[in-house]
C-alpha cells in the first residue's frame, strides 16, 4: 500500500508544461492567500470588513456555497451505483474528487473565519467539549468530517483495487455508498438548519431554507461538473460520454426551475403583506432606508438564473454545448451570489435592534478566499490526475 502512495504521488506530479503552468498558477494564488491570512492572524479579524452588526460575511458565504457543491456529488453517486449506469460510473470518482475538494474548501473557510483558530481542537469530543446535539455548528462539524472521510475512503478502496488489478467488492463498499448518499443530503440540510435555526434572524428563519439549499446545490454542482468534464475531455485522454453531460444538464434544469419557484415563493410571502420580518429581503432587493449596496448583485444573480433556466428548459439549447456552457456559467455565478452574499449578509441587515450597517469584503478577505479556491482546484487537479492514472492503468501493480 505504501507503494500505492508513492505511485500516486508520482502520477500527480508528472505532466506536460501546461499542467505545470496550471499547478504553479494555483500555487501562486494559494501563496498569496496564505500571505494575507498571515496578516489576518497578525492583526485579528479587524482586517476584514466584518463588524458586530454583520458578523458573518464573505468567508461564510463561500462556505455555504461550497457545502452545496460537495453535496451535489451525490448526483453522480446515485445513478452510478443505484441505477448502475455505466457511463456515469466512469466519472463518479471524479465527482467524489470534486466533493473532497469542496468539503476541504468549506472547512477551510470556517477555519479562516475563526477568531481563535488555534483553539479549534476545543471542538473535538472528549479532549475538547463538543456541544452535540444542541449546537447546529457542532452537527455541521460532525457531518462534514464524516462526509470527507466517506468520500476519501470509498474512492480510495475502489482506486486501490483497480491499481492492484482486483475487482472492488460491491458487497463491501455498497453500504458505504448508501451511507454517503444519505450523508450528502444531510450535510447540506444541516448547513441550511445552521441558518434557519435562528428566530433572531427572520430572513433565515424559514422552513423553505433547507429545500432551497438542496435545490440550488443541485444547480451549481452539476454546472461545475459539466464544465470540468468538458475541460477534461478536451485536454486529457479521459473519456466522458455525452450521456453523462445530458443527465447532469437535465438534473440541473429541474433543480433550477424548482429553485426559481422557491425564490418566487419567498418574494411573494415577504412582499404581499410587508411587515418587520420583510426588512432584510427589502434591503436585499430594493434597498432600505437609503442603503442598498447588495441590490445590484442580487438582480444580476436573478437575471443570470432566469436566462439560464430559459436556456436549459428549451431542449435544443440545452443540447447545444455552447448555450449549455453559457447556462452553466451563468447559473453557477447566479447561485454563488444568491446563496453566498445574498443569503448571509441580508440576514444581518437590519440587526435585531433595527440598525442598518452594511458590509463589503476587504482585499484581505478576497485574497484569502481566492487562495482557498485555488487550493481546492489544486486538490481536485491532483485527485483527477490520480484517478485518470489508475483508470488508464498508467500506475498499476497487479496482485500476484
Amino acid at each position: 500500500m505504501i507503494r500505492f502512495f508513492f505511485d500516486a504521488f508520482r502520477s500527480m506530479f508528472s505532466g506536460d508544461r501546461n499542467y505545470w503552468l496550471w499547478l504553479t498558477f494555483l500555487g501562486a494564488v494559494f501563496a498569496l492567500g496564505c500571505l494575507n491570512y498571515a496578516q489576518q492572524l497578525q492583526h485579528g479579524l479587524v482586517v476584514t470588513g466584518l463588524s458586530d452588526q454583520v458578523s458573518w460575511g464573505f468567508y461564510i458565504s463561500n462556505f455555504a456555497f461550497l457545502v452545496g457543491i460537495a453535496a451535489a456529488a451525490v448526483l453522480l453517486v446515485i445513478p452510478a451505483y443505484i441505477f448502475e449506469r455505466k457511463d456515469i460510473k466512469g466519472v463518479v470518482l471524479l465527482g467524489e474528487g470534486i466533493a473532497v475538494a469542496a468539503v476541504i474548501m468549506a472547512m477551510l473557510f470556517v477555519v479562516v473565519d475563526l477568531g481563535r483558530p488555534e483553539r479549534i481542537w476545543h471542538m473535538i469530543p472528549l479532549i475538547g467539549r463538543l456541544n452535540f446535539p444542541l449546537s447546529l455548528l457542532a452537527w455541521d462539524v460532525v457531518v462534514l468530517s464524516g462526509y470527507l472521510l466517506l468520500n476519501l475512503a470509498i474512492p480510495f478502496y475502489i482506486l486501490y483495487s483497480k491499481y492492484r488489478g482486483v475487482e472492488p467488492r460491491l458487497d463491501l463498499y455498497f453500504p458505504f455508498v448508501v451511507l454517503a448518499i444519505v450523508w450528502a443530503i444531510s450535510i447540506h440540510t444541516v448547513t441550511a438548519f445552521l441558518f434557519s435555526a435562528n428566530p433572531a434572524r427572520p430572513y433565515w428563519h424559514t422552513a423553505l431554507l433547507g429545500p432551497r439549499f438542496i435545490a440550488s446545490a443541485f444547480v451549481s454542482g452539476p454546472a461545475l461538473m459539466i464544465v470540468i468534464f468538458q475541460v477534461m475531455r478536451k485536454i486529457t485522454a479521459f473519456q466522458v460520454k455525452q450521456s453523462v453531460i445530458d443527465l447532469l444538464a437535465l438534473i440541473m434544469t429541474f433543480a433550477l426551475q424548482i429553485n426559481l419557484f422557491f425564490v418566487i415563493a419567498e418574494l411573494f410571502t415577504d412582499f404581499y403583506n410587508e411587515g418587520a420580518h420583510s426588512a432584510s429581503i427589502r434591503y436585499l432587493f430594493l434597498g432600505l432606508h437609503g442603503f442598498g449596496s447588495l441590490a445590484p448583485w442580487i438582480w444580476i444573480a436573478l437575471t443570470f438564473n432566469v436566462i439560464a433556466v430559459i436556456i436549459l428548459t428549451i431542449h435544443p439549447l440545452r443540447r447545444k454545448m455552447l448555450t449549455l456552457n453559457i447556462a452553466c456559467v451563468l447559473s453557477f455565478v447566479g447561485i454563488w451570489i444568491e446563496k453566498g452574499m445574498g443569503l448571509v449578509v441580508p440576514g444581518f441587515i437590519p440587526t435585531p435592534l433595527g440598525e442598518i450597517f452594511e458590509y463589503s469584503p476587504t482585499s484581505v478577505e478576497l485574497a484569502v478566499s481566492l487562495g482557498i479556491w485555488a487550493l481546492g482546484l489544486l486538490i481536485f487537479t491532483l485527485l483527477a490526475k490520480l484517478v485518470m492514472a489508475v483508470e488508464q492503468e498508467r500506475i498499476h501493480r497487479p496482485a500476484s
Partner: protein
Amino acid sequence: MSDDKVDKTDTGTVATRRNFLRNFGVGAAGAAAATIPTPSPAWDGLTFREAFDEFFRKHYKKMSPEEIERTLTRIERRAKRRFGVDIDCKNTPAQEGVVFGYAINLSACKGYRDCVSACVKENNVGRDSQVQYIRVLEMDRGNMNLEESEHYYDPETVPVEGKYYLPVQCMQCDDAPCVKACPVEATWTEPDGIVVVDYDWCIGCRYCMTACPYWARHFNWTEPQIPPEELNTDTHYLGNRPRPRGVVEKCHFCTQRTREGRQPACMEACPTGARVFGNLLDPDSEIRYVLENKTVFRLKEDLGTEPKFWYYTD
C-alpha cells in the same frame, strides 16, 4: 469623536487613532504594519509551563480548584505584562438562592448613556473595538418598532421631546439561544441566572452572535485597547478580566460586583435611578415589587427566550 487620541501600547509603540483607523481600511498593506501594535512576545509573558497549561487547558466546568487557581494566576500575570498593572482575578461562585433579574423604568430613563460609559470602564472593555455592552435606543413615543429607532442620537440635550429611551443589553435569557448555538460550550447559564462566557475557551466562530435576538453579544475584532491607568483591577474570571482578541463578550451583570452584593456598574451610574436589580427568588426584593405592581414587558417576548430583563413605566 474623531479627535486624535494617542494610544500607548505596552510595547511602547505610539499610534495615533487616525493612523489606527486608516490602517484597517480597504486594502491595508504592509506599510501600515509599522504603526500597529505588534502582537505580544512569545508566551505572552508567561512561563513555558503556564503557556503549555493554558493551551491544553480543560473546559471550565471540568477544571479542579487548583487548575482554576493556576488559571487565575496566569491571567493576573498576563495583565501585568500587558498593562503593567497588578490585578486581582477572582472566581466568586454564584450565591445560593439567588437568580438575578433586572428592570428599567422607561419613564425615568432620559437617554444620558451614563450606564454605557460606566459599563465600559468597569468591565475593561476595549476602547477602540466598538464594543459597548449596552446600547440605548431613541424611540418615537407611541412606537415599538425597533427598525425605526435611532442608535446614534446626539442632540444638544436629552430627553428629546416626543422620544423615549430604551437601553438594551444582554437579557440573560433563561432559554438562551446563544447557549444552544455555541459549538464548544464556551457560554452557559450559571446557577444565578447569568449567561457567562469563558473567554479562554471561546473559538471565535461568532455563531452565538447570529443567534442572539437582542444584539447583546460583541466580538473583539482586535486586541482590546485599555489605557492602563483606567484598568479596573477588581476582576472576575467569568466577567471583566482582561480579554484576548478574537473572542466574544457581553454583559454579565457585573459578576465581579453582584456576586459580592454590590450593584452592577450601570445601575450605580444611572443618575435617575431608572434601573432596578435584585434577586428574583426573594419575595421582598425591589425587582419583585416591580414585576408584581408595575406594568412590565420584555422585548421580543414572542421568541420564547425568557429574558430576565424587563421594562416598565411609572
